[in-house]
């Protein structure tokens, strides 16, 4: 036993009811301790649609619940305006629903005192233009939207203010009774890694769907059955009002606008375990089908994620699903022979305050406390002063001001003060939900406080005697920090909405980790673990919806965190340099390509019947589609051979967001490639692009890009070598990544040999934390035990309060003479402290080689760039070089051209089409290189269970069940099946059918459109793009 605490009431459950009860009790002056097994609001209080019921939904079936709802609805709107958005709600009668239900429902609403007012459909369509025009009737009711996270957070803050103690991550392991009377509980505090004994007079079980499990600890059987409901969160707000289907409650009835997202639900599936919040794709698809009756374009909207919550249905008579009552119950266990314990369960979010009031009434009665309930009268959070609001308006982004105010509640002043303390505290860590660094740090301090409070030495109040404090074993920092790495980012997400918007953490996760590392609170000892944990949690909600826009976002995420930052890969162990073995097995196979075969029709390719209108563009021998690394390399290669070449682009290509290094092959089947990666080609599957091309083609392409990049001075250095394999270079996430060609001055030997390394960041550069990098590196074998010195350089660019500084801004500044001087001057100040310097990718975009050599001359020690997330300064350098070369070669580049299809005859492509109807301008050529990218570049289109290549509509065989597209874990040891999806080609890079027969004779595929490899987990993306592009261009 680590510690004993004493209080009057223990409340189990940190959802709305539990925190509401803690608030209620403490406002009556009753000391209480709340124990929650996870974070506050991690259960059903955040896993519901966010509808504050008017009661109209229950009016017909359950008038008592309906009356409760309307009364609570009015109270919550009054006491918690920060948590409630007064949207109003509509009940809409869809064409397929029974019109006879409407009068019954109207009468029931009237009976329950719920105002329901008819709106003419024409008026309704004007107000909600996205709604289906088939809707027959619309009625307005006083529904509202409620934010569960905020409501629970503010209740907890208010409870604490009144003296309650709240312990998240503290799971009750035993309920102690003496002679049929509750005397306390035993709990395991996971944050502090200790067991606590809490003595109490009364125990309240407010654990929702877990109530049965908790009651069982006291030997009581409860008829609580968990019932799972699925919800879909959409990326934008497509309705301003809550839209209910006017019918008997069924699946997919409710749409709730929630800040800037829309939540749609729900389903009702009885489950055995309240922790069973898994989501099945078919359940989500069924919901979408239901929802289309109300919003016909629902499938066009981006779904952010799917999530499920488990409702606690109280059904002693074994009713389940929609037939079970939504009413709450207070179960006094005294009649069961157990004194001092009661359970509150069932019910719904809307009535949480009433549930808390009722159970607190019972507890107060048993404890002989006469103080009445005050929760219906006192506002949850006092109104902030006008002056504070004026200050807040100056430091929060305009659009973000109000959400931040509402989220922060009692912490508003702290966040405002933080934002005022330094200009970069106004930086947006989360640009999708507009969370500033100041707000994030304020929330981090709050979370850290909670963790600390759960630790005995920091717990004030009764029962915390000095003797006990001495006895308590303070958990080691290591242990606590390990725990933080697992939970901190998710805890902060629930408080701030960070990572809950469009990019689902793609950009803010690293920034948040960086901000924590720089802030001293909750700093992660293991930053990669922290990021992985957070992204895994985001993945759970996306995985069942792996198609279309969701999948594109996932590919971006894999590009950043896996391909660029390698937070998934196992760290390397440096082998002794292996002796060079000479020619490897795959070399020299290029010459042996079979001659192309002609395939005549019948291959499933579209043959357009219409003749295309001429674009007037003619005389091109080669057309390359796609302006990424593969497309640019292909166009250069074709033009270098004297072919008249045209490059068609639709978007700037992923060189702008990649890491900017050229990687060949870092991992093979999840294991680091320790030998020469080119020799490792022999272990690849035969359909892998490298296996198809062979070593010579790869080596030639590498030589090509290096030569091109180094025309004006060394800009792309060969860091890896055939003798010692890949170079393992530091990334801004604090990992090492296997690389072949890297930025200026990269010298892995110098890095390895340096006894001390300074890592320099720039104030306000939110994507780069020197402390996070240094901490990560110190955990690698290479850097363990070395002196790693994080340094923060003052920002050279005045923070204007508008755009946050990016590495690209700094690189552009470094390109100017004063920028180069600034770099030399600032880095010179720290040069004496280290033997090598690591900086973000800021050494210029155009004049990199010059900047680097000037730095070398000034500092006299190696300076290298870490591999950074987007904006990809290093990638832009390569892009710039390739585009310059295209200009020298007089290659025409046509921007903004979307190729919709192609005219194919007798296995040859005649021209590319630019409009879906084939009537747009056509682009004819002799041969074509298709480098349109994968899912992210729109070279591959996906829908539930289906994938095809986007120009020739080549089918890509994928499992019908979306669940089989991916592994359960995002950072799985195996490649996800979807990751290797792409066009199958032969050794000439011509597409082939399932029998290996060539289907297009004059079309080559290059880059991410190709199948058979996983750019992200293998760390092979830039290498494959470069080599296949180079090869295809040379053959075309």
């Amino acid at each position, binding site marked *: 036993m680590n510690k004993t605490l004493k209080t009057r009431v223990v409340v189990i459950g940190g959802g709305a009811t539990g925190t509401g009860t803690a608030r209620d009790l403490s406002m009556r002056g009753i000391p209480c301790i709340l124990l929650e097994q996870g974070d506050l609001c991690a259960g059903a209080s955040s896993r519901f649609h966010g509808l504050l019921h008017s009661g109209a939904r229950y009016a017909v079936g359950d008038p008592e619940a309906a009356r409760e709802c309307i009364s609570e609805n009015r109270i919550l709107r009054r006491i918690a305006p920060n948590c409630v958005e007064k949207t109003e709600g509509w009940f809409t009668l869809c064409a397929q629903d029974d019109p006879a239900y409407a009068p019954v429902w109207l009468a029931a609403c009237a009976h329950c005192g719920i105002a329901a007012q008819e709106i003419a459909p024409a008026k309704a369509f004007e107000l909600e*233009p996205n709604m289906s025009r088939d809707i027959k009737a619309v009625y307005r009711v006083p529904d509202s939207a409620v934010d569960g996270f905020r409501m629970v957070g503010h209740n907890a803050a208010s409870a604490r203010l009144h003296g309650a103690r709240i312990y998240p991550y503290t799971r009750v392991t035993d309920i102690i009774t003496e002679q049929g009377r509750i005397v306390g509980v035993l709990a395991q505090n996971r944050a502090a890694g200790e067991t606590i004994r809490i003595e109490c007079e009364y125990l309240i079980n407010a654990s929702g769907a877990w109530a049965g499990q908790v009651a069982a600890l006291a030997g009581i059987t409860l008829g609580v059955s968990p019932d799972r409901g699925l919800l879909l969160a959409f990326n*934008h707000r497509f309705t301003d009002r809550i839209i209910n289907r006017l019918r008997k409650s069924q699946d997919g009835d409710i749409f709730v606008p929630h800040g800037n997202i829309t939540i749609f639900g729900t389903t009702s599936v009885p489950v055995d375990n309240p922790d069973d919040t898994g989501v099945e794709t078919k359940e989500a698809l069924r919901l979408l089908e239901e929802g289309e009756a109300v919003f016909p374009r629902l499938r066009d909207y981006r779904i952010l994620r799917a999530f499920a919550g488990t409702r606690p249905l109280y059904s002693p008579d074994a009713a389940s699903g929609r037939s079970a009552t939504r009413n709450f119950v207070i179960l006094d266990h005294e009649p069961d022979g157990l004194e001092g314990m009661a359970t509150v369960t069932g019910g719904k979010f809307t009535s949480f305050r009433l549930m808390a009031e009722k159970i607190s009434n019972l507890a107060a009665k048993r404890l002989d406390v006469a103080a009445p309930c005050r929760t219906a009268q006192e506002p949850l959070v006092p109104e902030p002063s006008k002056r504070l609001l004026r200050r807040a308006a100056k430091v929060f982004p305009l659009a973000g001001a109000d959400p931040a105010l509402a989220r922060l509640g009692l912490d508003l002043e702290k966040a405002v003060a933080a934002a005022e303390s330094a200009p970069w505290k106004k930086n947006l860590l989360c640009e999708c939900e507009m969370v500033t660094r100041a707000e994030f740090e304020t929330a981090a301090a709050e979370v850290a406080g909670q963790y600390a409070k759960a630790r005995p030495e920091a717990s004030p109040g009764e029962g915390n005697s000095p003797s006990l404090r001495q006895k308590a074993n303070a958990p080691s920092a290591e242990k606590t920090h390990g725990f933080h790495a697992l939970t901190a980012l998710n805890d902060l997400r629930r408080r701030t909405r960070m990572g809950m918007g469009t990019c689902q953490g793609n950009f803010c996760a690293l920034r948040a980790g960086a901000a924590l590392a720089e802030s001293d609170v909750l700093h992660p000892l293991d930053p990669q673990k922290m990021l992985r944990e957070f992204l895994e949690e985001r993945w759970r909600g996306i995985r069942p919806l792996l198609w279309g826009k969701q999948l594109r976002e996932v590919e971006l995420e894999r590009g950043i965190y896996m391909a660029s930052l390698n937070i998934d890969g196992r760290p390397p162990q440096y082998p002794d340099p292996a002796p060079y073995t000479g020619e490897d097995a795959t070399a020299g196979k290029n010459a042996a390509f079979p001659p192309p075969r002609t395939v005549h029709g019948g291959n499933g390719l579209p043959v357009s019947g219409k003749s295309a209108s*001429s674009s*007037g563009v003619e005389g091109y021998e080669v057309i390359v589609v796609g302006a990424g690394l593969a497309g640019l390399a292909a166009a250069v290669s074709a033009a270098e051979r004297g072919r008249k070449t045209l490059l068609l682009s639709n978007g700037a290509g992923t060189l702008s967001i990649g890491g900017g290094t050229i990687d060949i092959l870092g991992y093979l089947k999840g294991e680091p490639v320790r030998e020469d990666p080119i020799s490792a080609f022999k272990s690849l599957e035969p359909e892998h692009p490298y296996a198809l091309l062979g070593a010579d083609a790869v080596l030639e392409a590498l030589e090509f890009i290096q030569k091109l990049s180094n025309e004006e001075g060394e800009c792309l250095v060969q860091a890896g070598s055939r003798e010692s394999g890949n170079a393992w270079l530091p990334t801004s996430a604090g990992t090492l990544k296997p690389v072949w060609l890297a930025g200026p001055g990269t010298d892995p030997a110098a890095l390895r040999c340096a006894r001390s390394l300074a890592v320099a960041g720039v104030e306000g550069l939110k994507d780069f934390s020197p402390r996070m990098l240094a901490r990560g590196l110190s955990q690698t074998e290479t850097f363990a035990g070395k002196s790693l010195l994080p340094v923060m350089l003052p920002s050279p660019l005045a923070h204007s309060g508008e*755009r946050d500084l990016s590495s690209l801004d700094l690189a552009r500044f470094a390109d100017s003479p004063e920028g180069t001087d600034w770099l030399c001057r600032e880095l010179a100040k720290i040069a004496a402290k280290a033997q090598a310097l690591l900086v973000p990718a800021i050494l210029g975009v155009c004049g990199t080689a010059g900047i680097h050599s000037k730095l070398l001359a000034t500092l006299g020690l190696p300076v290298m760039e870490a591999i950074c997330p*987007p*904006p990809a300064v290093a990638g832009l350098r390569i892009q710039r070089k390739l585009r310059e070369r295209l200009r020298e070669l007089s290659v*025409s580049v046509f921007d903004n051209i979307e190729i919709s299809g192609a005219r194919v005859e007798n296995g040859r492509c005649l021209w590319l089409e630019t409009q879906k109807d084939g009537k747009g301008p056509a682009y004819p050529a002799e041969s074509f290189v298709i480098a349109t990218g994968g899912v992210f570049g729109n070279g591959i289109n996906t829908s539930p269970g289906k994938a095809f290549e986007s120009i020739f509509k080549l089918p890509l065989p994928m499992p019908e069940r979306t669940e089989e597209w991916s592994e359960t874990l995002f950072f799985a040891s195996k490649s996800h099946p979807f990751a290797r999806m792409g066009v199958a080609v032969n050794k000439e890079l011509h597409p082939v059918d399932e029998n290996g027969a060539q289907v297009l004779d004059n079309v080559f595929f290059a880059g991410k459109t190709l199948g058979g490899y996983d750019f992200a987990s293998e760390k092979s993306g830039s290498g494959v793009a470069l080599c296949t592009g180079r090869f295809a261009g040379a053959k075309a």
Partner: protein
Amino acid sequence: MKSGALHNPDDCTACAICTMHCPVAAATLKFRGPKLTGPAYERFRLSGFEDDASLEYCSNCKNCEIACPSGVPIADFNMLARAEYSTGHGHAARDMLTGHSGDLGKLSSPLPAFLLNAGMKNRLTRSLLDRAGIDKRAPLPAFAPLSERRRLRKKNRGLKPDLALFPGCFARYYDPNAALDIICLLETAGYTVDVPDEFVCCGLPLLTGGLYEAARKRARINSKILARLAENNIPVVSPCPSCALMLRHEYGKLFSSDARVNSYPASEAGDFILGLIAQGRLSLKNARAPRDLLAYHAPCHLRALGVGLPALEILKRIPGLQVENMDAGCCGISGSYGFKKGKYEVAMRIGQNLFRSLKDSGAKIGLSECGTCRVQMTHGSGLPAAHPLSILRASLAK
């Protein structure tokens, strides 16, 4: 609740490639960048939040849309948001001035150029304009001689034409010769060209100034004429890539709520003439290349049109003609953006790259399809600038 494709930010993945390729963002930290002001803020605008003042820095050059891998109409998001923002905050005098430049041009059209230019370019006017928000250093274009403007007007002949030219305000008032050169080329190819007098400004300057309703009104007027022309299968050609972009792509998107506005397949002149050459209706056989080296700058809106660089294609086919594609990014002017106070410096910084390339090229003449690009090229580099099709016409002249 707003609805439609320009209020649906769902295609954006937040990758921010647009911000990396935004010329304004590269020139000033005061602009939050297209990703934030466009799709990211749209989610907040849909939730009823007010916009950010940083939005005014968007120049609507459309490089964001060209760079976007997801097909998000980012600049259109910005323009609609700006329209709403300025409706709430009042329109700046300078936006009224630059937005209505077409109307002002029309009003002044009976006056001779020396009077107009003396009136516009004197110190007093410029300092008054400066106070109204037009930077006094800005290279306001000079009115063309009355005779030239009249020659273009006379092309409205009420004949039964088989091609209609949408001249655009710049050609009408400042550079009728460019339009006349194109008409000459079209006539050589056998077309009877009409320049309908009823055509009004395409609406783009109004839109970028936040004057959405005024732009919509003009789009309606033009749509009516365009529809009539479409009925009779009469092609429409514009010497101005921005006008062509508006007519061809933007009308249908920006004004989708107005049933009386539609996109119409108007062609940019170079694109159309390249087609004529391909069909053999116009021959380059007798073209004589000018001796001077030419420096070509592709207007951003031409790139946004997605037709390649047709005029450059044509010039490259003239034997012996020396033309170099500057490929140096945006010139900065973006219509009237670079004239505005507070934006002049931004525009000049954006154009630095191009100005340097032009100066270093050794060319005697700069070329660009866009009128205001030409003004800015001359302002920034000192090089005179012409429409590339004027060069074609000159080389075909016997």
